[in-house]
């Protein structure tokens, strides 16, 4: 049976859950399709579920763990009556009103829910390297989650690929276990914030492999090394590591909306006048539409915008 809702939120990171809190308090009884368990950032709670300490979310003077912060967001949404459903949206039809959404729980035969309005908060997911050996050795030394897997690399050398805040956060976390952490970055300078750079440079367990591009993850049954080449000299080197952690950035989760919502040239969903998408009644917030800031607090802020925009849009249509 297809349920009917005024508001369906797709996604449950900071953006989706803030939209849920606001729209629940506006008595719109939102249904939140929060996703399904996974070991990538494509999971209930989003990217913060794979992080450790969050030190820049205002209000938490001493920091808070990412999963703990998201549990609080979720509890707050539930407290005001948001209907949180642990399933993944598999298909949407935005061509007619009400809109229709299919889910893994509801199956492919009929839409699980029809919605007067939709808030898209599907976020972004981690990019993989796409080099030989990576897929084959995933779970055998190649990891997408330092907080899950760092434990297995006690007293072993590991590499972190990437140069942003996520990469340095993982590198610093891994110094708790690993004998040495090599940060492999394709440029001569990092993209990460100054405070993270200062901490990484101060650690005697972190070394840097500059101007280095990964060619292959080596190993038969588990990782034995990482083949890289120098972008300027072309020289090839083998890094002797037992673990490879990939943190080279994210891409927006837009596949559900291909051909239905206008996208920017860089692949993010386009917004107009606040959180409006190219389809009236469909609003967009969080990292799926933000290629610039990509912070928990900006995602939460945009989720609030989407909820207010939805409320006004429904009002204007007499609902």
């Amino acid at each position, binding site marked *: 049976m297809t349920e009917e809702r005024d508001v369906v939120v797709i996604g449950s990171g900071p953006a989706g859950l803030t939209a849920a809190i606001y729209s629940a308090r506006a008595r719109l009884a939102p249904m939140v399709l929060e996703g*399904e*368990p996974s*070991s990538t950032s494509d*999971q209930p709670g989003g990217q913060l579920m794979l992080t450790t300490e969050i030190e820049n979310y205002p209000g938490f003077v001493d920091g808070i763990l990412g999963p703990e912060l998201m549990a609080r967001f979720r509890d707050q949404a539930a407290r005001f009556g948001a209907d949180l459903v*642990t399933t993944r949206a598999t298909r949407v039809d935005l061509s007619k009103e009400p809109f229709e959404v299919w889910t*893994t729980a509801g199956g492919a035969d009929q839409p699980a829910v029809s919605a007067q309005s939709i808030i898209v908060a599907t976020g972004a997911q981690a990019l993989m390297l796409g080099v030989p050996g990576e897929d084959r050795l995933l*779970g055998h*030394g190649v990891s997408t989650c330092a907080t899950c*897997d760092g434990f297995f690399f006690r007293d072993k050398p590991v590499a972190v690929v990437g140069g942003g805040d996520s990469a340095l956060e993982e590198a610093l976390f891994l110094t708790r276990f690993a004998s040495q952490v090599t940060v492999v970055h394709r440029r001569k300078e990092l993209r990460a914030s100054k405070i993270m750079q200062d901490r990484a440079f101060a650690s005697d367990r972190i070394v840097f492999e500059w101007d280095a591009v990964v060619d292959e993850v080596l190993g038969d*049954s588990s990782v034995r090394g990482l083949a890289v080449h120098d972008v300027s000299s072309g020289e090839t080197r083998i890094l002797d590591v037992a673990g490879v952690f990939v943190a080279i950035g994210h891409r927006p989760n837009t596949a559900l909306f291909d051909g239905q919502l206008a996208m920017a040239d860089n692949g993010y969903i386009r917004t107009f006048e606040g959180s409006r998408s190219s389809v009236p009644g469909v609003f967009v917030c969080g990292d799926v539409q933000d290629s610039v800031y990509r912070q928990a607090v900006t995602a939460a802020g945009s989720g609030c915008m989407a909820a207010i925009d939805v409320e006004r849009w429904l009002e204007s249509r007499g609902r």
Partner: protein
Amino acid sequence: MSQSIPALSDATFDEHVTAADVPVLVDFWAEWCGPCKMIAPVLEEIAAEQDGKIQIAKLNIDENLDVTRRFEVMSIPTLLLFKDGELQARIVGARGKAQLLQEIAAYL
């Protein structure tokens, strides 16, 4: 996790997976692993619904390094499926219920 899912240890693991007359799916997990927490309710549902067809058990990797090393678990959650004590399948990383059921269907 509820009490319905038995916790195995280095000492009890072998006997448990060998003695069972149905396949045993063992969840290698730890307290500090976010995706492990999310998969726990999925496993409880499967344990309840597939009662008699499959047994679910869990093993805390922090406390049971021998078994964890023996099966070369290097990422959690990892689910190992045993039939008559023999390792049949390895599932690395959290999954939704439907996908997990699909992956173990061939062994039930």
